[in-house]
C-alpha cells in the first residue's frame, strides 16, 4: 500500500506505547492478548509506566515480559506473588502487579497466594482462569470443571478422586487482607470494558495502601478445550460461568 494513503487517514485507534511491537505467541481466541492489552492501556492512560513493575508467571503467559513494555521480573512457577512482595516491600511507592494462570496461582502457588493476600500486600494480583494447564498441553488444573475431559483426566474429572473445581477467588475474598476481589471475563466487548474498569480501580486503590486487589479473569482456551474460538464463548456461558460466577466478590469498604 502507498504510505501516503496511510498518512492521510485519521488515527482513531492505536495500541498503547506500553505494549511492545513483538508478535504475541498466543493461540487465536485466547484471552491473554486481550487482558494484556487492557492492562497496558490502563498503565498508559494513568501515565504510570515509569513507576510500574510487573511479575510474569510460568505458563502460557510466561513471555508476558516480551509484550508488556514495563520493567518486569519473571518468577518461578507459583511464586509470582512472593516475588511481587519482595519488589513492593523495597519499592513501596511504585505500582506492582503479578500476572498468573490457574495452575500457577491456584495449584503450585496456593500457599504464596493465600499468604500474600493475608498480609494484605499492596499489589494487584491478576489471575487468568481457563480451567486447564494450557502451556503443557491441556492437563487438569485445580479449576477444571467436574467431568471435564483433559489430557490427564481422559475419562473426565472425577471429583471424588481428584477434588472439586477450586474457587480460589472466593477463598481469597474471605481474607481481611483482601481489599478488592472481583471475577471478570473477556468474551464480549462489554466484559472487556468491565475488566478494564476493574484494573483501573485496582491501580487507583494501590495509591490508598488498603490491601490486596485480586482480579480473576475467566478466560477462553480454544486449544486446551479443543473447540473453536467461537465455541469457547458458548462454553464459557454454559459451563464456566455457572461454576465461576462473574462479578465482585469483595468491594472496598470505606473506613
Amino acid at each position: 500500500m502507498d504510505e501516503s494513503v496511510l498518512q492521510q487517514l485519521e488515527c482513531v485507534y492505536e495500541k498503547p506505547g506500553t505494549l511492545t511491537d513483538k508478535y504475541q505467541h498466543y493461540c487465536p481466541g485466547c484471552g491473554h492478548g486481550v487482558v494484556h492489552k487492557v492492562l497496558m492501556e490502563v498503565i498508559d492512560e494513568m501515565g504510570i509506566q515509569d513507576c510500574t513493575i510487573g511479575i510474569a508467571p510460568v505458563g502460557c503467559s510466561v513471555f508476558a515480559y516480551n509484550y508488556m513494555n514495563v520493567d518486569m521480573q519473571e518468577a518461578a512457577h507459583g511464586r509470582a506473588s512472593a516475588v511481587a512482595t519482595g519488589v513492593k516491600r523495597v519499592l513501596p511507592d511504585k505500582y506492582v502487579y503479578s500476572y498468573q494462570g490457574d495452575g500457577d496461582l491456584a495449584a503450585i502457588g496456593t500457599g504464596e497466594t493465600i499468604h500474600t493476600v493475608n498480609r494484605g500486600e499492596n499489589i494487584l494480583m491478576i489471575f487468568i482462569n481457563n480451567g486447564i494447564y494450557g502451556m503443557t498441553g491441556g492437563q487438569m488444573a485445580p479449576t477444571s470443571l467436574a467431568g471435564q475431559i483433559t489430557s490427564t483426566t481422559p475419562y473426565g474429572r472425577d471429583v471424588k478422586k481428584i477434588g472439586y473445581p477450586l474457587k480460589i477467588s472466593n477463598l481469597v475474598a474471605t481474607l481481611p487482607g483482601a481489599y478488592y476481589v472481583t471475577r471478570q471475563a473477556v468474551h464480549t466487548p462489554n466484559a472487556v470494558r468491565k475488566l478494564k474498569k476493574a484494573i483501573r480501580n485496582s491501580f487507583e486503590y494501590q495509591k490508598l495502601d488498603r490491601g490486596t486487589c485480586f482480579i480473576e479473569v475467566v478466560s477462553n482456551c480454544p486449544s486446551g478445550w479443543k473447540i473453536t474460538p467461537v465455541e469457547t464463548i458458548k462454553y464459557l456461558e454454559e459451563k464456566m460461568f455457572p461454576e465461576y460466577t462473574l462479578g465482585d466478590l469483595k468491594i472496598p469498604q470505606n473506613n
Partner: protein
Amino acid sequence: MEIKMSKEIKLMKGNEALAEAAIRAGLQAYFGYPITPQSEILEYFEEQAPKRNFVVVQAESEVASINMVFGAAGAGARAMTSSSSPGISLMQEGISYIAAGELPCLIVNVNRGGPGLGTIQPGQGDYFQSTKGGGHGDYRLIVLAPSSVQEMADFVFEGFRLAEKYRNPVMILTDGALGQMMEKVELPPDGSLPYTRPEWATTGKPKTRERNIVTTLFIEPEVMEQVNIKLQKKYTEICKNEVKYETINCEDAEVIVCAYGLSSRISQKAMDLAREQGIKAGIFRPITLYPYPYDALNKLADTADNFLVVEMNAGQMVEDVKLGVNGKKQVHFTGRMGGMIPDPEVICQEIVKLAGTKKV
C-alpha cells in the same frame, strides 16, 4: 590511665552478630522463616527493623522467603535470607533462579545435623548442597565459611561485597554451634559498605531507557548455552580472584589437618596436642569453600606427608582435598555425623597414627 575505645567490642551470639553486621552493612531487606538453630537472626531483625529503617518480612515458608529475596534483589535492594539445612533444601529452587538471573544476595545457612528433619545440633552435612550447586542446572554460589563469631560478622560485609561485585548469590555456610555460641566481636560502624542501586534493576521504566527485565527463561538452546558460557566465565573469574584460606604451622608440617568452620577450631586444639607430643602438625583452613583453594593444597602436598580431613559429616570436603592434593600424598578422613562434634583428643590420635608414615 585513659583507655580510648575507638572500636566497638561486644559479647554476642554468632547469629546476632551476623544480623547486627548485616544492618551495619546496609541491609535493605530481609525475608526469613523460623527454624532452629538460626531463629535469632529473624528475631533480631524484627526487633531492629522499625528503629533502623530496613524491610523485614516473616514469610510463610522458606520457598516464599527466597522468592521474596529474588524480587527485592531484582528491584536492586541489598537483600538476604537465612535458614538451616532443611529450610535451605526448600530454597534450592529459588537459589537456582537467583543464580540464573544473576541477582546479588546473601543466603545464610546455619547448618544442622541431617539428613531429613535430622537434629538441631550443629553439622556440616550441607557442604555438597552448598558448594556443588544444590539446585538444578550449572551454577555456583560463592561460599564463605566462618569459624568464629567475629567471622560471622565480618563475612556479611565480604558476602555483600562479593555478591554485588559478581552479581551472584553468596552463601555464608556456618553451623548451629557458631550460631549459638557467644564470643567477643568487633563491629564496624553503620554504613561502612557503599551502595548504589544497579542500573539493571526493575524500578520502573523511564522514557530514557528500555525496560529492564529480570528473567531466567532462555527458550532457544543457542541462547541458553551462551547464558551458561557467560556464567561459567564469571565463575572462572571468581576462582581466579577470590580464593581465601588460612594456614597455621604448615611450613614444617608432616601432617596437615584440613577443616573448615567449627571443625577447624577443634582441629587447632588437636594440632596443639600433637605438637606437645613433638609431632609436626599444621592446619589448612579453607575460608572460601567455593572457590576452593585447590592450588594452595597442591603446593602443600610437596612438603607435607599426610593430609587428614576433619568434618562434621560422612566426608564431603575430603573429595575436594583429594582433588587439590591430586594423588601426591595420602588423604585421610575422620569425622562425626548427625549433630555430633569431633573430639580434639580423637583427632590428635589420628594425627599421631599418621605421623611418621609416608606414601610409598
